């Protein structure tokens, strides 16, 4: 397999630079949307939009973050084109990671309910 064939194979399996550019623009726009949402809610301006957004701003921020995460993993890390085994390895790790976060939150939420003044550092 020479360099030209290798390059052709790589180009077939990975997205093109046009796709990479579109993804970069979307990532930039989503980041701007995150900061804009934060700014609207915490500056209360415009007031109408801030009132609507305030109860759901944390969920909006987490959803935007998840979309950005998925875009980078699928297109920049090539999970969309690199086979299911790698997606499985990463997906399984992410599931375990999510389990760790949820377990920590549940355990410490219970601890603080039972002992409201508990200091976990002692």
């Amino acid at each position, binding site marked *: 397999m020479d360099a030209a064939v290798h390059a052709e194979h790589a180009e077939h399996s990975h997205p093109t*630079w046009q796709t990479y550019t579109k*993804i970069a623009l979307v990532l930039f726009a989503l*980041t701007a949307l*995150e900061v804009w949402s*934060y700014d609207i809610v915490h500056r209360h301006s415009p007031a109408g939009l801030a009132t609507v957004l305030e109860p759901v701003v944390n969920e909006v921020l987490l959803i935007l973050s998840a979309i950005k995460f998925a875009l*980078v993993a699928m297109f920049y*890390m090539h999970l969309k084109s690199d086979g299911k*085994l790698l997606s499985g390895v990463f997906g399984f790790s992410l599931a375990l990671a999510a389990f760790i976060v949820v377990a920590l939150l549940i355990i410490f939420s219970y601890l603080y309910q039972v002992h409201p003044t508990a200091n*976990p550092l002692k």
Partner: protein
Amino acid sequence: MSEHAHVDEHHYTSTGLDNRKLAIWTFIGSECMFFASLIGVYLVYKGRDLVGPKPHAEWMLKGVAQEPMLEIALVTFGTALLLFSSFFVVLALNGAQKGNRKQLIGWLCATIFCGVFFVGMQVYEFNHFYHRGMGYTTNLFSSSFFTLTGFHGTHVTLGLVWLISVLVVALRGKLPPEKALNLEMAALYWHFVDVVWIVIFPVVYLIR
């Protein structure tokens, strides 16, 4: 003979994947769990400080009201740099796969430039916090904040060392298209530190 050497060089496994690629993904998977623990601890301690500094609210120091610690504008700039660096490194990889040395070296330099600025931003932020009275053991927020973002900064720095070493190899003309996987592994690690920051940025800086 050359075909045999080629097969040996690519380390294919029974899965059809290069074992180096499988290894880096397994490593990235273990790193996900490592950062999940740090993020989990940050969330557990969030809002449980008995004394300042506070990340998002005013706090008192020797009877004087102090501004919230976190500076969103500076970190947004750093976040944008890290996102763009991920874009630049895929363009460098695209160049490496096509044998376009100019594209490879140019975009790899741009990636390293963005990474260095991101680390510089973190060093400035840590130094600024320290001079405003927030040390590592000041309160729960400071300990969990410095641990989480400090470990991320360390990973970015290691990623930079890896990318610089690949740049040196490319500058010597020793990164032909058939060895583009050497850059792809460094790029995967670089994207990983980017996706970790994609989670840290809203969790630490934007969500109150």
